[in-house]
């Protein structure tokens, strides 16, 4: 189990991490999700021991690791750039952590080929390198230099280097962002499978919400150096704690509609069945929850259609000039653009946020019946 307890990190005037607390259960897969510059990589470096917090502490299995070096923490990290040593072969890259930890300076030197005890230890580590290489499917690449490998192969070498010494925690810093789309989907599944097979805790940093949602048990959305929301992917999607989290999570960008300054919902939502709050609010509604329905309470004119095969994306302009994005299933026959269209949405999918703070207002749903 990894506990991050009220960690703060500043670089000069700039507070990169502001009182961040998170817990990752033993063997779980935690994703740190956020835009670039939100502090997620800084947090990963603090866990790895490459940097120290200004306040707060990190505990692994209940033990405060503040004073320990990166080696003593026994964490492994996979970098976005893979960070392979270009002058060493694949086998030497994978074997380096073992050589540094378990072999003496004499074992590692050319003399190590001569002494029988050194030779024994060297061939032991080589056997382990071969085993790990086989487990990630790069046995045939062991003699190559990293310069002669493709991106996906380098990624596997970097994973093998992390796996070979059986670390207590795996830290993955945007490991998939340099791969092409098809390979990324494949590696996503392989990394999750590694998490299940090793039973170790994985912490995965990413800016791609699809990656975080599909891979992780729990996701921490980080915005501006703070944890905006920490929960399961389902919680993030269904009950985003703030307007910013709602904007960040979800495949299609969420549509926001501000209510009048005097308070309450925007008039176009009056028929949906959500109780009108007293203060000024913003409604967030995901395109996939707003669908055409003959008797739907929201009316507008169909403006634009994007056909994507499995679904159709619709831009609907309401009477007040507000554009709503809606979806329909791929087999839906759209009317001609410009014609009137009715849309419906379940009240449970209408996210109500405070207009000033952006915080979620839960009371809005109580007692509201579905009208879709």
């Amino acid at each position, binding site marked *: 189990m990894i506990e991050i307890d009220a960690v703060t990190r500043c670089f000069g005037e700039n507070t990169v991490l502001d009182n961040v607390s998170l817990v990752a259960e033993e063997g779980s897969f935690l994703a740190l999700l956020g835009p670039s510059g939100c502090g997620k990589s800084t947090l990963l470096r603090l866990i790895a021991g*490459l940097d120290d917090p200004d306040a707060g502490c990190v505990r692994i299995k209940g033990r405060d690791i503040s004073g320990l*070096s*990166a080696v003593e923490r026994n964490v492994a*990290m996979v970098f976005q750039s893979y960070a*392979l*040593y*270009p002058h060493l072969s694949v086998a030497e890259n994978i074997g380096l952590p073992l050589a540094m930890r378990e072999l003496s300076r004499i074992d590692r030197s050319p003399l190590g080929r001569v002494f029988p005890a050194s030779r024994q230890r060297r061939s032991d580590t080589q056997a382990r390198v071969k085993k790990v290489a086989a487990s990630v499917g790069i046995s045939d690449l062991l003699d190559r230099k990293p310069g002669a490998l493709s991106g996906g192969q380098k990624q596997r070498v970097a994973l093998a280097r992390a796996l070979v010494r059986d670390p207590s925690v795996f830290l993955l810093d945007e490991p998939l962002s340099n791969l092409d789309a098809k390979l990324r989907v494949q590696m996503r599944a392989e990394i999750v499978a590694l998490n299940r097979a090793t039973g170790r805790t994985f912490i995965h940093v990413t800016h791609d919400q699809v990656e975080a949602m599909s891979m992780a048990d729990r996701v921490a959305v980080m915005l501006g150096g703070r944890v905006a929301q920490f929960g399961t992917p389902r919680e993030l999607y269904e009950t985003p704690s703030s307007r910013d989290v709602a904007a960040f999570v979800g495949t299609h960008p969420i549509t926001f509609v501000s209510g009048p300054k005097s308070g309450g919902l925007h008039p176009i939502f009056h028929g949906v069945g959500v109780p009108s709050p007293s203060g000024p609010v913003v409604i967030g509604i995901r395109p996939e929850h707003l669908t055409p329905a003959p008797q739907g309470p929201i009316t507008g004119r169909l403006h634009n259609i994007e056909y994507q095969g499995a679904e159709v994306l619709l831009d609907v302009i309401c009477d007040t000039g507000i554009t709503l994005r809606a979806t329909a299933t791929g087999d839906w026959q759209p009317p001609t653009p410009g014609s009137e269209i009715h849309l419906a949405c379940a009240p449970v999918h209408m996210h109500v946020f405070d207009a000033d703070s952006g915080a979620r207002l839960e009371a809005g749903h109580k007692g509201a019946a579905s009208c879709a």
Partner: protein
Amino acid sequence: MRLSRKSRSVLTDIWLVGPATCAMIVLIFIPVIIVALMSFTDYQFGARSFNWVGWQNYIVMLTDPTARHAVTNTLVYAAIVIPASIFLGLIVALGLHHLALKTPRFASGLRAAYFLPVAATLVAMAVVWQMLLHPSLGLLNQLLAAMGQQGPAWLSDRGLVLYTLAVIGIWQSVGYNMVLFLAGLAAIPSDLYDAAELDGAGSGWNRFWTVTWPMLGPTTLFVTVITATGAFRVFETVATLTKGGPAFASDVLVYAMYREGFVYFKAGYSSALTIVFFLLVLLVTALKFGILEKKVHYK
């Protein structure tokens, strides 16, 4: 008339490559051929005729103690200056690279100080050295005298003069090597250092051999070639400070070339010296391209 696309592109290539190629042929290749031919003659500057003498000039060079001196002195000088200025350049660059993280202003001041000898005119700097090293009035011997030591005659002692010149040569090239190494150090991705730290190679020594030294390979090779050709070409300090003396104790190839050719007007013999020098530098360059280049680029 419209030219075809292909011939226009050929014309562009010639236009881009041509001027530099012509200059190289006229200023380098043709003179080298003339010098090579002259080295087999007894031609003297101003003479109306010359005779082919075969390998005579080269035989003189091998047997004449003066010429042998110039060659061995050049090799000794290079053997001191090349490793010392590369090693010191690397040490200074590593030190400044780390210092720049803590006190950037102090580090950039030091960097300027180290680079000054490169930017300054060497002849002027040699005069300053002459004053510093003067046997009785020079600052160095005055300091030694203050400590109760009798300082040697740095530039007129036959056994010492070559080493004094070598120290000046090192002083002059350390700054240049340092700047090149600093650029090389700045180009090493920080991810590699992070990876090395997590892999257990985080201590200074292991980190240097796991990341810094291998990643500096191309820089080190370039620095070595630059320093080596510079060391073989040593001339200004010799011409300004010692004129090859005392008794040819600091005579070097390029200075001998100049003396035989432009003081004694023995153009044939001077050409033979030039060819030997040319082959030395060619050897260094060939080593670079033939062998080492493959070992330092990891692609």
